């Protein structure tokens, strides 16, 4: 049993509400990416509500606080929901997701001034480099806080990721924690069928990273202990990589066990089924 600021029960309640937000947002505009969003819900809830040290006011430079970068920007529904639930912007704004004149663009952007977002992402493979730059700035500024970067596993097919991997190890970026959403699936199918990632733990180790693998990435206790282990591994002269085994579509039974919910929206009936499986806990956002 891990000790937490919030009880596991409270975190579970947040997770359930975020899942509701995700399926409602994607249903509301009939587009977006529910699969990966649901798979990373426990991770983002644990990061924002339990692990990261964050300032009360959002400031783009983020001095004196931990920073999180979402490189696989298509899982914006989970990011937006967690940011709203953590107080960065009004919860009801989630209803504007992917709609005209919204700050909640299809993929996250700083362009509309949405608090909580520090860089645009969506074109894959760029987030780890940006996180390295932010971590490098923290070192220059003698800021001891940490920088996190989440990537999809399919995203590792982008060459820039491995440029960044080499750089981070060579430059001993030990204030950086990379996280891979290791769900084994991408739009066109299983990563093993599309383009195999090979032995991922050994690949990152060979690139000079300290690797931590979490086999149960949708279990709050496992996610917290894994993240704690990652935090404890910082400051030791090498970057840390957390390989988080998750299930795409987790928490909605008919979305699990398949890659087909990577980027499609539920219909009315499917929405009702998904919501029945995840009871309202913190209050749904209002659609005006």
């Amino acid at each position, binding site marked *: 049993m891990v000790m937490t600021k919030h009880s596991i029960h409270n975190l579970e309640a947040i997770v359930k509400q975020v899942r509701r937000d995700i399926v409602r947002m994607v249903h509301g505009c009939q587009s977006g990416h529910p699969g990966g969003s649901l798979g990373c819900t426990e991770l983002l809830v644990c990061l924002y509500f339990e692990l990261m040290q964050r300032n009360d006011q959002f400031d783009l430079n983020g001095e004196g606080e931990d920073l999180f970068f979402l490189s696989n920007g298509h899982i914006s529904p989970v990011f937006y929901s967690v940011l709203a639930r953590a107080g960065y912007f009004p919860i009801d704004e989630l209803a504007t997701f992917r709609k005209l004149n919204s700050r909640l663009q299809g993929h996250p952007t700083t362009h509309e001034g949405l608090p909580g977002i520090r860089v645009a992402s969506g074109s894959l493979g760029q987030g780890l480099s*940006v*996180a390295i*730059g932010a971590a490098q700035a*923290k070192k220059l500024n003698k800021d001891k806080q940490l920088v996190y970067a989440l990537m999809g596993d399919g995203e590792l097919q982008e060459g820039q990721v491995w*440029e960044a991997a080499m750089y981070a190890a060579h430059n001993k970026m030990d204030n950086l924690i990379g996280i891979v959403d290791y769900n084994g699936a991408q739009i066109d199918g299983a990563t093993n069928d599309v383009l195999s990632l090979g032995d991922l733990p050994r690949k990152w180790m060979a690139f000079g990273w300290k690797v931590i693998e979490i086999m149960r990435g949708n279990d709050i206790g496992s996610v917290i202990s894994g993240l704690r282990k990652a935090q404890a591994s910082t400051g030791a002269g090498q970057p840390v990589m957390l390989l988080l085994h998750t299930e795409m579509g987790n928490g909605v039974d008919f979305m699990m066990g398949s890659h087909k919910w990577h980027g499609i929206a539920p219909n009315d009936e499917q929405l009702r089924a998904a919501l029945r499986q995840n009871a309202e806990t913190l209050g749904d956002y209002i659609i005006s």
Partner: protein
Amino acid sequence: MKKYTYTESKDTRSGFGAGLLEAGKEDENVVALCADLIGSLKMNDFIKAFPERFFQIGIAEANMMGIAAGLTIGGKIPFTGTFANFSTGRVYDQIRQSIAYSDKNVKIAASHAGLTLGEDGATHQILEDIGLMKMLPGMTVINPCDYNQTKAATLAAARHKGPVYLRFGRPVVPVFTPEDQQFVIGEAVMLNPGTAVTILATGHLVWEAIRAGEELETLGIDAEIINIHTIKPLDERAILTSIAKTGCVVTAEEHNRIGGLGDSVAQLLAKQMPSPQEYVAVDDSFGESGPPSALMDKYGLNAEAIVAAALRVLKRKVAT
């Protein structure tokens, strides 16, 4: 024709190196990144003065652009350094998403632009970079003409808030602008007032435009010559004021005819003041290996080509 003289020739990239050092002294947030071309980019003096503020990235330009974007989160003012080709086309998407769309205060310092890179040939001679960069919303595009102006432009870029593409070159060219000049981004520099034809030049073609003006004077033609060091934002007022007076224009640049300064001017004129225009630019082709000056002659980027273009455009003016 106003007399322009010079006592020495220097490369514009050395102007960048000197400007970067000055910018580093002026603001401790200025940092530099390089993709394995320190000597080519003349970054040595900066690195010697501020070793902890320099990042050797290796041959990984995409990663360099991302790291530069990240450094701005934390208040740094990063200058990335590599050849113009690898600063733009190779990393267009990284600049587009992580820098331009993300409103990051990154300065993309691009050396060896255009044909004058010389012997390495077309793989390294980019002639499309101005076009690529000016199409990005919010990007400032600067192409200074000599050592002094490049140094001043580098300082101005560091002080400017927002992404900047700063383009300069490899060969030595006459140093004729004042050492103590004020460089104002987006403000064209009048080099010679005239009445018959406007010559708008940028980068290495500015000196050629001055030579062309002297030649035109011997033919009894009074050319107005303006240095357009900033292609975006374009000094529309200066350009329209000049062409309202002269009635025709020649644009001159070390770039493809498509997408460069000439196209920016043509777009402005089509909307505001349709006027005869002739281009001195590369005619939609790649470059090739050769000595820089021979390449400029072969591809028609010299004073003689500007004179010929001026004579052509003057004929069209009379015809209209």
